[in-house]
């Protein structure tokens, strides 16, 4: 995947600025989540260990595909995956995110935070959206980690949306030429449906699974097949989650 030079250097610049600001940003975000919102992630050390193993097994880039319930899913996952020190040593694993431009356009503060948090915005305009996806594929191809929500938006039903998911994730997977994606299932004990923000004091469970994507097809059929496999995997992870944490028996 090649990008025009005029698109490469802004990404390189954003990476440098994000790296310089990451310690402060990470500190403030985790401070807010841990001490103001009183969020906790179960088995945090074990999750970080698992992520470390995945990083060691994957010297190349990695496409990370989580389910989507709240606006801060990517922040929670950034906190869960690694410590600040680990991100400083392996900054490529601090995920690039692809939020919808519409969600942040109105606020300068949001746009600044997004920029510093390694976000590249997906515009409504199909041509611009395509450019963003090309940038993401370029980053994956160059060893970076990229996070995209395959459902495309927060699930309105509170369950993995297997009807309205986007095929762009399949295209991104194909363009990256990587074999595997990391599927991640994140859910708080009290989360019944999608919301803007999890409740204060929420306890989160996270499961990760590296998935090899197989496809006998090419082109848009392969894209659809890849996206379908990712969604199926997330559905299976959701099923496993509710077997382990039935709604009525979740612990405080």
């Amino acid at each position: 995947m090649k990008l025009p030079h005029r698109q490469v250097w802004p990404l390189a610049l954003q990476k440098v600025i994000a790296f310089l600001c990451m310690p402060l940003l990470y500190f403030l975000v985790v401070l807010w989540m841990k001490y103001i919102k009183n969020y906790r992630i179960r088995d945090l050390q074990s999750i970080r260990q698992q992520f470390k193993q995945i990083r060691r097994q994957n010297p190349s880039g990695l496409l990370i595909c989580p389910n989507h319930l709240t606006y801060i899913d990517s922040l929670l996952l950034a906190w869960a995956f690694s410590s600040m020190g680990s991100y400083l040593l392996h900054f490529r694993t601090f995920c690039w995110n692809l939020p919808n431009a519409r969600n942040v356009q109105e606020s300068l503060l949001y746009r600044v935070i997004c920029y510093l948090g390694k976000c590249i915005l997906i515009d409504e305009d199909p041509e611009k959206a395509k450019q963003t996806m090309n940038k993401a594929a370029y980053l994956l191809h160059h060893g970076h980690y990229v996070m995209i929500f395959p459902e495309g938006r927060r699930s309105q039903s509170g369950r993995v949306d297997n009807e309205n998911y986007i095929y762009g994730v399949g295209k991104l997977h194909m363009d990256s030429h990587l074999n595997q994606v990391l599927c991640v299932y994140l859910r708080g004990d009290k989360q019944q449906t999608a919301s803007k923000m999890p409740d204060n004091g929420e306890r989160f469970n996270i499961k990760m699974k590296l998935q090899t994507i197989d496809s006998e097809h090419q082109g848009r059929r392969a894209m659809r097949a890849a996206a379908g496999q990712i969604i199926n995997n997330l559905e299976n992870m959701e099923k496993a989650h509710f077997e382990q944490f039935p709604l009525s028996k979740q612990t405080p």
Partner: protein
Amino acid sequence: MSNDVFEQVKEIVSPYCKNKAALENATAETSFLEDLQINSARLVDIVIDFEDEFDIEVSDEEADKIRTMGDAVTVIKAKT
């Protein structure tokens, strides 16, 4: 032929269409996204269905240009 293709396109689009009334009264100018309220991701399914139904191959560039019922008919007619 054009009418036949148009009717076949209507039939293919029907399962993905949320606005059935708009589909019933569809013209060449009827847009998939705005008028028929089809999810943009499902446009990919529709193009794949066109390929299967008419035994054609639609390139990404051609698929990107399919915005209305008329666009679909034009692409299909050019290939059959």
